[in-house]
């Protein structure tokens, strides 16, 4: 078991390396570098660029070195906690990121929990009352949730909140807490605002999870061991809790790997629409101004988040599911 965990963690390293290579390729794709767009920007303002400063900048950021060397420096820097320099903000990337990454993680985790809390009872109801009116209604509702893109849902909610209640639901905390250090009040304010993005991001994921969980439970409920238990007179409620539910929990945990990239994708988009102080708005402005190191670090962070999420779900599954434990115990 212990050896399995070690091996699983070690396996992450080549994955992350491959991801970093991909991200670096994307960063390098645009023709020219930031210095060139910087010159263009200066010239547009009617200023002449100081060639010495430009040469200094080029050397400083290693634009004069070959690509593989820059990649190597970038990766080594990241391992040491140096994520490069944001040209747009004139700050190290780690300072620009700051709280934002934490808030992204917070929204993602809260969304996963929300998704589970909603999907679990609904899926169980739907599976045990297959083809009833309730089941059909919930299925239709789920389909609608699945079909409404979450950034459009955010837009619609924003509109109705504005028209009906006259308030803005954008933002993730009351304005007075922006740029303030963390305090209890600020945390409470964040929690008060958290539900909007969580609901918006979670809708599509919840609908998808209900469908998968329902199908999974239906398969399970037809299995012989359930029939046998029922034939022996186990009460319906206990039967449900004892067998299929455990399978469903395993399914929920193993589904993280599937759902997490979608949630992070969705939360980035929704954050842009609702102007949340997470990574989304900065990512898009970095991409638009070709501040590629900042954008690259964000991409790297986000995919690391999913890789780690999948690792956690794998480990949790090993702890939860005796069959997998047996299989993996035999392996190591």
């Amino acid at each position: 078991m212990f050896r399995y965990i070690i091996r699983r963690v070690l396996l992450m390293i080549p994955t992350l390396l491959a991801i970093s290579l991909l991200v670096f390729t994307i960063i390098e794709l645009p023709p020219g570098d930031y210095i060139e767009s910087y010159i263009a920007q200066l010239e547009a303002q009617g200023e002449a660029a100081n060639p010495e400063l430009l040469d200094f900048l080029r050397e400083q950021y290693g634009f004069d070195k070959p690509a593989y060397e820059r990649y190597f420096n970038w990766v080594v820097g990241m391992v040491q906690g140096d994520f490069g320099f944001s040209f747009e903000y004139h700050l190290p990337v780690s300072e620009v990121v700051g709280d934002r990454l934490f808030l992204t993680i917070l929204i993602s985790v809260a969304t996963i929990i929300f998704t589970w809390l909603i999907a679990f009872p609904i899926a169980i109801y739907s599976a045990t009352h297959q083809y009833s009116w309730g089941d059909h209604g919930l299925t239709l509702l789920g389909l609608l949730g699945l079909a409404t893109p979450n950034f459009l849902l955010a837009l619609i909610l924003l509109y109705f909140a504005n028209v009906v209640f006259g308030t803005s639901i954008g933002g993730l905390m009351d304005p007075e807490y922006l740029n303030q250090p963390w305090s209890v009040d600020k945390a409470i304010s964040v929690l008060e605002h958290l539900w909007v993005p969580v609901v918006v991001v979670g809708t599509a994921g919840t609908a998808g999870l209900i469908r998968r969980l329902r199908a999974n439970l239906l398969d399970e409920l037809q299995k012989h061991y359930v029939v046998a238990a029922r034939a022996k007179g186990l009460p319906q409620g206990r039967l449900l809790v004892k067998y299929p539910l455990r399978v469903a929990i395993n399914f929920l945990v193993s589904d993280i790997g599937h759902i997490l990239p979608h949630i992070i994708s969705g939360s980035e988009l929704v954050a842009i629409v609702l102007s949340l102080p997470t990574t989304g708005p900065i990512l898009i402005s970095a991409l638009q101004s070709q501040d590629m190191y900042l954008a690259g670090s964000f991409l790297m962070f986000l995919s690391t988040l999913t890789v780690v999420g999948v690792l956690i779900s794998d480990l949790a599954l090993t702890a939860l599911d005796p069959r997998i434990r047996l299989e993996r115990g035999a392996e190591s």
Partner: protein
Amino acid sequence: MTPSPGNGAVVEHFVSDAPFDPRAAERLTPEQERYFMASQWRLMWWKLKLHKLAVVSGAFLLFLYGTVLISEFLAPYSVHIRNTGFIYAPPQRVHLFDDGKFVGPFVYGMDYRLNMKNLKREYTANSNRVERIRFFCRGDQYQFWGMTTGSLHLFCPAEGGALFLLGTDRLGRDVLSRIIYGTRISLTIGLVGISFSFLLGMVIGGIAGYFGGWVDTVIQRMIEILQSFPQIPLWMALSAVLPLSWSPLLIYFAITIILALIEWTSLARAVRSKLFALREEEFCTAAKLMGAKPARIIGRHLLPGFMSYLIAAATLSIPNMILGETALSFLGLGLRPPITSWGVLLNEAQNINIVVLYPWLMLPVVPVVLTILAFSLLGDGLRDAADPYK
């Protein structure tokens, strides 16, 4: 078996008069015959017909793709016509009766006033100006598919009048016409994109599944890495890289390729897992022994076996592509004007202050949701129909 008559009575030997038919037991009724002789695609069609929602969705999608062919004719206005007198005009209502008198479908003309207090443009319906909608009429000139010039429209405003059933935008362009034109781009991007990713998925998944071993391992890892990326940030990054100097058509193809580059993975996985089982079958060994090349075995013998399943899977991933394009264009990273897609239209609705004043700018949401819903329902139906065990 005849029951024993008892009492020792002799049973008469019975011979049937009917002519002897040795195949009577295995003869099929016409329905059975039809069922057993039906091709796989016909079976799928029969099963799909039972799925009412899927059929309705399919019909709806067929209708939408039908409009794509004749967008220019259906839209009352040409896509880039600016009606400078009607900036941010609200949707007009279609009436049938004026003063209790039947006049056929018409709209009331609009009076424009600039509210000097809040600088809001206000339009009021003027009940004295009855503007009858004309049908099959000559209106704005257009280039039909960019080839021939035409001016025939399904319906257009009265002479000298205006007709904005879904309002206008900040340049006074008719939102309904723009949605109709946007349908062409948004729907084709899904189809073109899925064809790319279908091809990629079949080739790469086919190679992984057929050869197995280290080739399979490498491809599997590649897929895992691509799938662990949050899709939309990756799409955003890739489309931000496209040079601004490219022509709109080039951008269109670049965006479809970007969407396909990430979307092929799930199809490749499906192909791989199916091939893994099929390549052990005897017909595959036979083909191999007869000297068929791997490409022929995969393409001719293995893939057709589960093509229906693949098409169902592809249908289910079209909505993802349409959504991807919409999201990218909405953020201003995807297609750019003058190309008009639903996402480009929604880009105008990005500013919530504008949306609150002119909510009809959000209307392109409706076709997006309906199309995605229809594709998911049709895909579900196809998947059930393609499953021979159901």
